[in-house]
């Protein structure tokens, strides 16, 4: 049974700056990282492997350099890593992206029964939280979003019970397999790769599927298949903050100032 983790290589957004002139992201020299939420998706698919003997697969759509991210997944121990890469996939919005990912998952499911698809709850560059649900609706999978705990998995009966982390409450949900789960940070603590695994991952073959393999209608992928596009990126104007006191040399005095300030704005109820 398959436990597939969909992961995305994103620019380290803490390091990305916006060019105020062109209103675009300055990406030069910015390192790529695995979308942090996806690391939890990946970890959970590895746990499915460790605990239930499922086959863990890391799947990523992106330019050829995404291979680096998939190699990291190999160093963590996935059974297989597949890169979905084709020129025509470029510039995709969430609709087109979920199309490619769903097609690839469907293809994998032809050969082996699909159990769970894990996606991070959202990416730190797009923040849409749509790709996971997009995959689920295309493939007709049950959607379990914002999962922070897998309560029970019964491979005999093919059911799963999870806990969803919602605003101020939790929800326990049960569903029949196959399911799509989006993961939040609290779900698990991602493992750290061992050196022998890192070294082995250098030589592992990362399979690439292009559109010749996937055979998707080119009109439904990439820029062409994307009904939404980003017109402008900018940093919102905000009122200048204020530095009060001298926290380094007079932390106590500064704390007093801060409390007075909060009280005066009625932000601190006593």
């Amino acid at each position: 049974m398959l436990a597939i983790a969909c992961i995305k290589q994103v620019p380290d957004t803490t390091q990305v700056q916006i060019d105020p002139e062109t209103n675009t992201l300055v990406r030069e020299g910015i390192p790529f990282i695995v979308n942090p939420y996806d690391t939890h998706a990946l970890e959970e698919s590895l746990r499915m492997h460790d605990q239930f003997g499922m086959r863990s697969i890391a799947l990523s759509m992106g330019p050829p350099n995404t291979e680096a991210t998939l190699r990291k997944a190999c160093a963590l121990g996935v059974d297989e890593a597949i890169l979905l890469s084709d020129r025509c996939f470029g510039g995709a919005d969430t609709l087109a992206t979920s199309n490619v990912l769903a097609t690839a998952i469907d293809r994998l499911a032809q050969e082996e029964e699909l159990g769970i698809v894990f996606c991070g709850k959202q990416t730190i560059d797009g923040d849409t939280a749509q790709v996971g649900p997009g995959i689920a609706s295309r493939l007709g999978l049950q959607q379990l979003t914002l999962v922070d705990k897998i309560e029970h998995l019964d491979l005999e009966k093919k059911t799963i019970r999870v806990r969803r982390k919602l605003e101020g409450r939790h929800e326990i949900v049960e569903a029949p397999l196959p399911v799509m789960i989006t993961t939040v940070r609290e779900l698990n603590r991602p493992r750290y790769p061992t050196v022998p695994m890192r070294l082995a991952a250098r030589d592992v073959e990362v399979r690439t599927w292009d559109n010749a393999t996937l055979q998707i209608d080119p009109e439904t992928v990439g820029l062409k298949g994307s009904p939404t596009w980003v017109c402008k990126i900018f940093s919102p104007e905000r009122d200048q903050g204020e530095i009060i006191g001298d926290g380094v040399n007079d932390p106590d005095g500064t704390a007093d100032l801060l409390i007075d300030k909060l009280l005066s704005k009625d932000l601190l109820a006593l």
Partner: protein
Amino acid sequence: MTSSKIIILLLFSASGLAFVWSLYRRLSLVQLGQGKGRFDRFGERFGNMLLYAFGQKKVLARPYGVNHAIFFWACLFLVAVNLEFVLAGIFPALHLSHLPDALYVPIRLGSDLFSFLTLGAVAAALVRRTFFPLYPEARNIEGYFIVIIIAVHMLAYFGINATEIAQGQERASAWMPISLFASGFIKGASPAELASLHSLFWWVHAVALLVIFNYLIPFSKHLHVITAIGNCFFRDLDKPNTQPRETFEIGADFGADSVAKLSWKDLFDSFACTECGRCEEACPAHHTGKKLSPRQLIHDIKQNLLANREAIKNGQEPPLPLIGENGEGSCSEESIWDCTTCGACLQACPVFIEHPLKTVKLRRHLVQEKSSFPEELLNLFENSEQRFNPWGIPPSDRGKWCQPFGDRTFDAEQNEYLFFVGCAGAFDNRSKHVTAAVAMIMEAAGVTWGILDKDELCCGDSLRRLGNEYVFDQLAAKNVALFKERGVKKIVTQCPHCFTTLANDYRQYGLDIEVIHHSELIEKLLAENKLTLPQQKKQGKMLFHDSCYLGRHNDNFDAPRQVLKQATGSSLLEFGRNRENGFCCGAGGGRMWMEELSGTRINRERVQEALQQKPETICTACPYCMTMLGDGLKDEGAGEVKVKDIAEVVAEALEGQA
């Protein structure tokens, strides 16, 4: 030859052979370890051996060491005398009495006095072991046994001499005060009684000797009488806290989880340990109630080697794991993570055992092969790999502190020094003030400097001491390549951790240029009059805390003190445990990034010690010490005491100039 002589001959020959054989068997176990012998710089090594083993220099560094030195020197003398005892027992022609008086009398006198001194040392050892042991387990049977056997051996020796004197056979009796005194007790005995007394004492003396040579030396910690000499010869002549590199190849071992993956020297160390407990007493982790004891670590390695030797020889899985909760012979993970790599144990050990090196090897295994480490280190590891600093702050912020100084990108043509700011200096709000002070001092002294800004990577000190050699290796290689690419000739650091890593560890990566810590640079600038302080700034009572990585690991004790004295014009307060014996702040060895969950807190202990001196300011030359002491002062409710870096004190003295 009479039958009794034949028995003696056989007995002693057998004993001699058994001694050599058992020594060989035990010491050849070190061959199960890795690496090559240390025979380079032979002269220096030989000198070390004379000074530290035969001269007992480090043993004598502690008051009670005198007693050991007496034992040692007396034993050296008595070994020679005992050789005569054995030989003359078999071949009477070899008896010392055949020597002329000029030689014979002094030897007899010496033996008498040394034996008596040894008895005194035995008494002192018994009292100490019973009433003031360095650690409670020192009151063990073996410990008492050896002292008592030595006492028996000495008493029997006096017994033999006394009977010989009573028999009128000792021509030097007038020069043997103790033996002569003892002979008074058996004066009235008949010749037959004297003869049987003589043979009784002779046999007691002989049996004690056999026990010492055939049991105590080869099979107990008293093997150290031989191995300690070797250890003084084989000691690491360089910086013992610079770990060896690892090669990252498939199939290689990363770190050690078995004695067979330690070095032969690590194993030899375990046989050289005298279990004196000095390391444990000096250890900040042990002192504050953590699980770690460096003495126990060395002991466990020995016990593990003894328990696993057959399996290892036969290429089988060792039955007793080196890392785990299996009691004696196995090191618990918790204790492995307790170490601050402060080096107090290295300093205290009279026989140069290299403890933290072993700890780091065990950590390397845990991190690199098992991914098993305290939770809070995950962030450190990920941040160091992804954003090249422990906090995971964007590298673009690295140069922010420098804004008031304008663009200071390093330029080999214009700048004498690369200022390697370090992560604390670049990102920690408190330490940024120190960074600015160092920059200001260089400006005032006309020293040209530049920074690598966002391209500087963490030096990797914490990673290396924590056993994450893989990521350290990447950072080190990239930093060194960057220094070369930018044409860097001289580097100044403001952090002892950056300093030791660049100056010592990066040598392994081919970095062979001047690296200087800011304390030394400032001292030099003051001495050369390039930096003049217009006003000495009185700072009230000031206490200086030695950073382990500046002081103990790099022998820089005087520069920061000198700088402070010149900047303030007043003398400094000193900790009781200072300089070589300084007590760690608790942050070294990557402990900066870890919780301190067991025992009391190391930084609070150090701060309590500081407060006894009632200082107004505690001075440091290390950003980690600064954080730890600052936190400790708050915890102790002594927030009014300031913590300052030496550079800040100098900058304050400079301020009048501007």
